[in-house]
């Protein structure tokens, strides 16, 4: 298998997932496409409920029973994961693709010893003996920064702090030695002080193990130091996609502007701008651009026809009519322009 940095190891194409619910079908994911290249970190950013977790649950084959994959494909080394059965996924989960959960407090079994929750994977995936599994589990615990792993091995989750539990969840995800690591908002449930350490750890293990990472986050600010590519997701669709530089310094979609403006700025301490309104009801998603109702720059066309992805550069596109040649010229908010100028020294 070629290992040049351009080869794609996971390709999601036009993924469409709905949930059967009382009021009808909840259209949680509506045609999502993105690539994951070897050694790269791809971020998916968006507000709560935008369909990020549903997308990665489809990749892991752990969608709940009322979910229906209505279309699209997830290509992993020539296998379409949307068509894979439960047995097939046993070969993928843990061994090929590891997952770090949003909430480490509820992701660990409360009444099983920490050590056993790690060795279990080693027993089952690598068929290691008890003694070998223990040695390796302690090694893993040390590598994710657990002090005194020998003593901690025999403790239970409730004896660990939130940050330590997330490190254990990371150790568990690494135990099967996967090549792809998916992090679903790995720091959302943690204290701010702990967040930075966990993010550092993820970056460190990514380098050490040459992992490819899908990094899910609702906070664009955190993503800047983590990802090479950023996908901005809203109401089940990706609205803007580009390299981290594209999205942070040349944002094109009003939703991305809104997300960027809502990041608190440490230097100027200016008031952070909350995005007005709430995400739409996904049983009856709006006809045009789903963000139009909350968007003060929305054109009449935005309410009627859905904007297609419009190319900005080789690496950058956004789905907004504002990019259409005939659209009136609209600039990003002043605050945002100032901020970007300050960060880039005005060179962009």
């Amino acid at each position, binding site marked *: 298998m070629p290992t040049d940095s351009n080869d794609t190891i996971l390709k999601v194409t036009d993924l469409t997932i709905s949930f059967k619910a009382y009021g009808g079908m909840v259209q949680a994911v509506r045609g999502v496409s993105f690539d994951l290249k070897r050694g790269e970190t791809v971020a998916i950013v968006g507000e709560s409920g935008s369909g990020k977790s549903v997308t990665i649950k489809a990749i*892991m084959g752990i969608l709940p029973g009322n979910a229906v994959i209505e279309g699209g494909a997830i290509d992993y080394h020539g296998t379409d994961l949307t068509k894979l059965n439960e047995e097939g996924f*046993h070969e993928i*989960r843990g061994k090929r693709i590891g997952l770090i*959960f949003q909430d480490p407090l509820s992701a660990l*079994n409360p*009444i099983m010893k920490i050590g056993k929750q790690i060795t279990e994977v080693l027993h*089952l995936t690598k068929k290691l003996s008890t003694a070998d599994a223990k040695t390796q589990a302690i090694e893993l615990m040390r590598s994710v920064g657990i002090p005194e792993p020998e003593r901690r091995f025999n403790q239970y989750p409730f004896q660990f702090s939130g940050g330590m539990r997330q490190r254990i*969840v990371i150790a568990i995800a690494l135990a099967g030695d996967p090549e792809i690591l998916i992090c679903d908002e790995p720091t959302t449930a943690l204290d701010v002080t702990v967040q930075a350490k966990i993010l550092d750890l993820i970056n460190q293990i990514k380098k050490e193990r040459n992992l490819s990472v899908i990094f899910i986050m609702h906070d664009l600010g955190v993503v800047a130091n983590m990802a090479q590519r950023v996908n901005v997701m809203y109401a089940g669709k990706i609205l803007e996609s580009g390299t981290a530089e594209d999205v942070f310094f040349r944002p094109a979609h009003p939703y991305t502007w809104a997300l960027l403006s809502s990041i608190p700025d440490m230097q100027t301490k200016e008031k952070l701008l909350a995005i007005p309104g709430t995400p739409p009801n996904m049983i009856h998603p709006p006809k045009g651009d789903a963000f139009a109702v909350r968007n003060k720059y929305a054109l009449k066309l935005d309410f009627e026809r859905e904007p297609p992805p419009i190319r900005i550069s080789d690496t950058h596109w956004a789905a907004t009519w504002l990019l259409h040649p005939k659209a009136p010229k609209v600039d990003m908010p002043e605050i945002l322009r100032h901020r970007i100028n300050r960060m880039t020294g005005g060179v962009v």
Partner: protein
Amino acid sequence: MLLTLFLVMSLSFWIIRLMPKSIFENPEVSPEIQRLLEAEMHLDKPMVVQYYYFLKGIVLHGDFGTSVKVRPGMDVFRIISTRIPPTVMLNVLALLVSMPLGFILGTIAALRRNKPTDVVMSFLIVLFISIPSFVFASALQYFLTFKIPIFPTLYDSTALTLGAKLNSLVLPITALALGPIATIARYLRGELIETLSSEYLLLARTKGLTRAQATVRHALRNSLVPIANTIIPMITGIIGGSLVVERMYSIPGMGGQLVDSILAGDHFLTVALLIFYSAISLITILIVDVSYGIIDPRIRIGGRQ
């Protein structure tokens, strides 16, 4: 624990003794002898003093008093001691039978959730929970001893082999166990369904465990923790039911004796029986509490810290 027992002792003493039946109300005994007897048992003194003698007797001498009606003149403790084994046997067996069966049925229902098996079982479960055990007792007696004589109608206390004894206990045990089996199955089903949709079960599956491995390793034991709570009221339920069921199958246990002594107004015997019943419940509850700690490390270790 001891405090509970003390409260039970005091409560049963006061409630039973304040009932308006005189202890000696026997026209065949002359008034003089009656008075003599009353003096010997301190019955001529005020209630508070009697209460003092009652507690002192139990605590210092294990003396629960003397029976006056059911078997006059006999030491209450001696009457009861022969009655304890059948009752304990009946209740413990009913409990031992109902727990594993309840677990198995609850697990099946949870795994087959909303499928026909589950729907039928859920219906039966509600039925069995709401019917009291003595109804089962008479139904079983009618169908399985009278209509189709498979089992003996009554308890055979003279049976020589343990097998024969147990054989005559099958029906009363079944009658007592049906309700608890349904109770456990119902709670376990609910708990298991919740555990099966928990985050850590999802993590177990993303680790690469199969559905079966994840269920066995991460769901079953976790679901037992909240179940332990329902076992305590269940035990008291079984014991309450056994009072009547013992009677129906003429099992010479404490239940029949309690009914007799209350009807006859044999207050010392009644009080002593109530105390022993509470002691049995308290011991089983203690066992449940201890096993609770074994299942759930948060209680075991958390309590120590």
